[in-house]
């Protein structure tokens, strides 16, 4: 490097085989105004300390791997530019509200289970043959759920949601938004099944509309909005359960 311009990266380190407590380690990294925080971490791993552990892949904000706390804020590190922090030190930690596997890597099993819990796939009674062509869906019908289909599963919203940190049974913003995405899809008939999942315990009701999930979401999914809408649908479903016992087939998809 011609110019010796550098920045300090303070990185959360924890190794399950050797540490019982985490510690912070400082690295001087070259300052490059095109660089994102992820570039700096990769530079450290390549040149200084090969044991530094993190996840990444696409470095264009769509694979959802590289979420970390950057100065206390949940961020995609491939979309957080050094120039926005320069010349002050940058503190990098694993996403909060998740257990830490090692260094900047958090445990994802719980999150993956929650995604599965909301049955995020098309549920229909009458499955068309592909030879009958596509299901028709107008642009207006597409618009009903499109926004909620943009989630990259980066989990920043879980790091921003205090309830996700306190309540294990809470499905959390991304999973609920995903369930809502399918509920709003005109091709789907599985609403009743999904709402049934949401109606249990704190699954959806844990959300007190803190709204920070939406604030940090890099893909403008607005999980907070999705959840409030889903709550209204779930409440309707709940009352419907009293008016007509399950299986009478009035609820969308509840038919046998």
């Amino acid at each position, binding site marked *: 490097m011609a110019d010796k311009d550098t920045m300090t990266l303070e990185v959360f380190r924890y*190794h*399950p*085989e*050797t540490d019982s407590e985490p510690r912070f380690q400082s690295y001087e990294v070259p300052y490059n105004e*095109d660089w994102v925080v992820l570039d700096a971490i990769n530079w450290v*791993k*390549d*040149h200084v*300390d*090969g*044991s530094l*552990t*993190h*996840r*990444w*892949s*696409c*470095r*264009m*904000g*769509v*694979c*959802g*791997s590289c979420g970390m706390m950057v100065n206390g804020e949940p961020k995609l590190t491939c*979309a957080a530019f050094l120039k926005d922090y320069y010349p002050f030190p940058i503190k990098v930690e694993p996403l909060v509200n998740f257990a830490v*596997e*090692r*260094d900047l*890597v958090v445990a*994802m099993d719980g999150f*993956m289970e929650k*995604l*599965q819990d909301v*049955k*995020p*796939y*098309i549920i229909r009674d009458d499955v*068309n043959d*592909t*030879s009958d*062509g*596509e*299901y*028709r*869906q*107008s*642009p207006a*019908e*597409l618009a009903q*759920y*499109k926004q909620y*289909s*943009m*989630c*990259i*599963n980066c989990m920043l919203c879980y790091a921003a949601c205090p309830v996700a940190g306190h309540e294990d049974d809470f499905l959390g913003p991304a999973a609920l938004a*995903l369930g809502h995405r*399918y509920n709003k*899809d005109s*091709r789907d008939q599985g609403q009743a099944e999904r709402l049934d999942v949401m109606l249990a315990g704190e699954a959806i009701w844990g959300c007190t509309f803190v709204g920070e999930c939406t604030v940090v979401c890099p893909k403008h999914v607005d999980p907070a909005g999705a959840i409030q809408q889903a709550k209204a649908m779930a409440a309707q479903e709940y009352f419907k359960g009293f008016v007509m016992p399950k299986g009478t087939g009035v609820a969308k998809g509840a038919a046998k």
Partner: protein
Amino acid sequence: MSHGTTHQHDVIIIGGGGAGLRASIAIAQENPSFSVACVSKVYPMRSHTVTAEGGAAASIKPNDTLEDHIYDTISGADWLADQDAVEYFVNQAPAEMIQLEHWGCPWSREPDGSVAVRPFGGMKIERTWFAADKTGFHMLHSLFQTTLKYDNIVRYDEHFATRLLIDDDGRCRGCAAIELQTGRVKAILGKSVIICTGGAGRVFPFTTNGAIKTGDGMAMAYRAGVALKDMEFIQYHPTGLPGTGILITEASRGEGGILINKDGYRYLQDYDLGQPLDVSDPGHPQKRAMELGPRDKLSQCFIKERWAGRTIETRDGHVVHLDLRHLGEAKIDKRIPFVRELARSYAGIDPVHQPIPVRPVVHYVMGGIDVDSNSATTIPGLYAAGECACVSINGANRLGSNSLTELLVFGAQAGKHAARFAMDHPDYNVAALETQAEDEGARVRRAFFDAPRKGGERIVTLRTELHEAMENGAGIYRDAESLEAACATVADLRERYRKLNIDDRTHSFNTELTAALELGSLIDCAEAMAHSGLQRTESRGSHQRLDHKERNDEEFLAHSLAFHQADGSAPQIEYKPVTITRWPPGARTYGAGSGLKRE
């Protein structure tokens, strides 16, 4: 590497991208009693299919024909594609795409509710399905979410496969994989195996490909004795952002974007790609012409413009401009919003008001694991699909938007055949395979954990040298000298790789170890690319030799096959003929002469 465990299933799929997930569903759906293992080094939705932007081709509209899609694909491939495979591909494409629609993919729509299509490079008519400009993302998530419906798909997330396990009878029966969380080497066994590990763009320094596209599956098959086919054909996408290599999708040109040089001139007209229409002309953008020419040609034009001194010099090298301004804000936001987002974040410009600086960038590997038209390799029980495989439908140049469809068509097909194989050959020798997996664990331990700590090579050093060698030696234009130099460097790197030294010798989440293994894969792929390139003394599609400028059908209407040599010497290159059925090789024309029958 600590002692591992054994897991048994019916079919093992290595890779959780588009191809791997499609194959998983195909098997799970048709054989409910089968247990399918999907092994992936990253969580499936992180797979690189997620980055694909532009769209996926399938002919369904009344004004389109299967015949035209076939012809566009074959001519786009510069006649190096196997025509029986292309026919199968094009015929299956509509049903596969509709299937994905039925699984919930949020395709962009026409006002009447039918799926919308857009024009793409090298295609005679608009037939590319799209979900705004996040097509791959939506396809991958739709597929992944659909797999969650099937209890008989068992995922091995964050398991890094390092070796194929071959039974005494020569059949492939699983893989050895490192469970990242613990560092254990597991034997994941089944009655047949499908490799769906994606491309190898990371052989090059400047690429649209993410960190995980390191050709692991290609290397695993290569080492196990399967040939790597047509590896000299590497696609440069004409419009990557300088610096990062982030892709600006071809859809931006499909929607009407134009390429201009430093004089504001649409230079493509100087290179036999037709005459430009004014951007306000209703006929713009013309299919199979100008900005909608094929990628190999467009990337080559850039280099020629650069040689002529008509490109724009920037801090990040030479660029031309992709101008979208005339599309207007509303259209940009509706059809290609991600392009705007990317240009704003990573190039600091807003395409509504400024042209986007772009340059060619390594994007796709046409070649790959040699498979026949049933997706079967030469090892019984071993199949491959997706970017890692070479069927081949992409020949010397893939047409944009054929790859995503290929994942579906051949993912499903590989699944079907692998399941059938599993049914027909149910018995295998567990103990022998376990021993192989243990050997593999021991090999990895020896190679990376037992080496002396002092004096070894660093991963980044070798990787950087590999990048330089391949960029200089096997770029858009190559010749004997440059390719020989690349071959020599790769051979040298292979030697030095033995002395690789890693800092981290612990077990849990050792990503330095996986980076080292990935470097090994890159070297294997680079070797096949450079040697295949050196042997092919003609120019065809993306393989342009400055010392052999013409296409030579006499000698080279043939697939190259690179065979790994166990002693580490240069690969042996053989050839096998291209399957030609109804479309004899012809001149590859774009622009005015391009319309075969229509327009």
